[in-house]
Structures are given as C-alpha cells and as structure tokens.
C-alpha cells in the first residue's frame, strides 16, 4: 500500500498538507519538533492513495511519497 513519510523536524506547521489530503490522513501532532513547532503526523493505518497532493503543496519538502 502507498505511504508517506514526514520529516517532522523540517515541518513549519502551515497545515497545507492537511487541507489537500483527500483521505484526511494527516493531522497535527501533540508534541513539538526541534523548531518548536507542532508538526503534522500521518495516520499510518489509513489508506493512503499515493497521490502526492500533500507533498506537492508542502513548501518545505517535508513529505516523501512511496508507492
């Protein structure tokens, strides 16, 4: 099944990836990252489409997509 990997410590918490994931798999993490930002996390049990919409819109290249 396709999946994404988020580089947590790069994330600036802009939340754009959340807005564009058609499956609603991305949400805000509870703990802070190295930058002092609440990064996003992915629901690894959800069915990722591998569509890369989240990665295409991320301004900080935090997301890798595997298919």
């Amino acid at each position, binding site marked *: 099944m*396709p*999946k994404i990997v988020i580089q947590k410590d*790069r994330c*600036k*918490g*802009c*939340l*754009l990836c959340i*807005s*564009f994931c058609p499956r609603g798999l991305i949400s805000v993490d509870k703990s802070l990252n190295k*930058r002092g*930002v609440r990064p996003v996390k992915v629901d690894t049990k959800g069915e990722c489409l*591998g569509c*890369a*919409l989240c*990665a*295409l*819109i*991320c*301004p*900080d*290249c935090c*997301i*890798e*997509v*595997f*298919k």
Partner: protein
Amino acid sequence: MKKIFSYPKSLKNVPTHYCPGCGHGIAHRLVAEIVDELGIREKVIAVAPVGCAVVAYDYWDFDCCEAAHGRAAAVATGIKRARPGNIVFTYQGDGDLAAIGTNETIHAANRGENISIVFINNAVYGMTGGQLAPTTLLGQKTATTPEGRKAGSEGFPLKISEMLARLPAVKYIERVSLHSPQEVIKAKKAIKQAFLNQVNNLGFSLVEVLSACPTYWDMPAKNALDWIRDVMSKEFPLGRIK
C-alpha cells in the same frame, strides 16, 4: 515500493528561513526539480534577487550569483553573453522585478536576451515588512496603504507580464499560480518550458508565479491560497500570455 516523491538533488537539505506556507519554498523546489530533470545542474547559473529570496543560493545546490536590487536581468544578460553555453535564469519578486528593476526587466526583454525569468508575484514587499508593491491589488491593505490601495494615489496593479508580451523580441510569457497541488504541477510545466526555450536558443522567457505571502497578507496559509484562487487570479488571470 518505489519512492515517487522526494527532495530534489539540486535543493540543499537545509531548513529555509521562509515563513510557514510561503510560496517561495514551493517555487524553489520546482526550479530544483526542473534543473535535475533537464540534467543541467553543472550548466545552470541562477541570479538571486533582493527580497525574501535573497539567500536562494543557500538553498539551491548549483551555481548562483547575487544581483543588486532589481538588476537581475542586467546581470543575467552579462553572464549569458559572456558564457552562452550556460543556462542563466533570474528569480525575482514583484518589488525587485517590477518596481526598482522595471528598467532592467523591460530592456532585457526588449533585447530578447536568451534568459529565463521566474517572477514571483506575491503582491507585497515581503522582506521589508509588507509594503505596497506595484502588483498590490486595489483595496489591498499593506503597511504603506493601511486603508487599502487606491488607484487615485497609488495607481493600478501593474501588469508587467502583459506589458512585456507586447515587445516583439519576447518569446514566451505565462502566468501560473501555486494555490493548489494541481496548479503547482502546471506551474512546473511552464517554468520548465521557459528553461527549455533557453536550451533551444529561442530567446526571452518569463513565468509569473502567483505566490502566497501569508505573513503580510495576514492570513493562515490555506486562506492565502484561497485568496489567490478567488481574488488575486481575477486581477492577474492565469494562462499563456505570449
């Protein structure tokens, strides 16, 4: 399982100083992907602007040169004429390209220099604190137009792309936007075309990129993208101009 999306080789693996949701990050990535895909990393020379992207050379992993504010098209002209085998492009904001650099931009276009320009239109001066730019929309509040831009005192949003398109020596102009993943794909295609035109010696190419500045538009990142879609792209229509 194959990795189908990751960090382009031509982008250094360092965090950027851009604000959360800033369009410069996406535009930098697109340029780096295109340089990788065209296999021109050893040949490309970027000319960085003055503006928020002033340190683009800290992020791109290929040769870069810095120009004084607004002078990027003149600097790129010099580099390209001295080294015609290199692929030379400028990356400039609206303040840089369409205010202080109007002169250099128009004359480089009018000479049909064989260079490529990535023009980031975010409708404000980001680096200096969100002042009015030539591309600020009527009614848009900025640090220097707290009650909104008025045509009577500040003039109309300057459509530099449409103006340049009238010059006979200009080869290619397109306006794109970074407000959704689908538009990001189209933006990449247009910027790639501008680079390919230079590879094929076709002459002056410019891509205007509508890009979010959530900080000085005073909006969350997603609202800034929606504002491009619903408001800004009505004033600056997307598509091929020439």
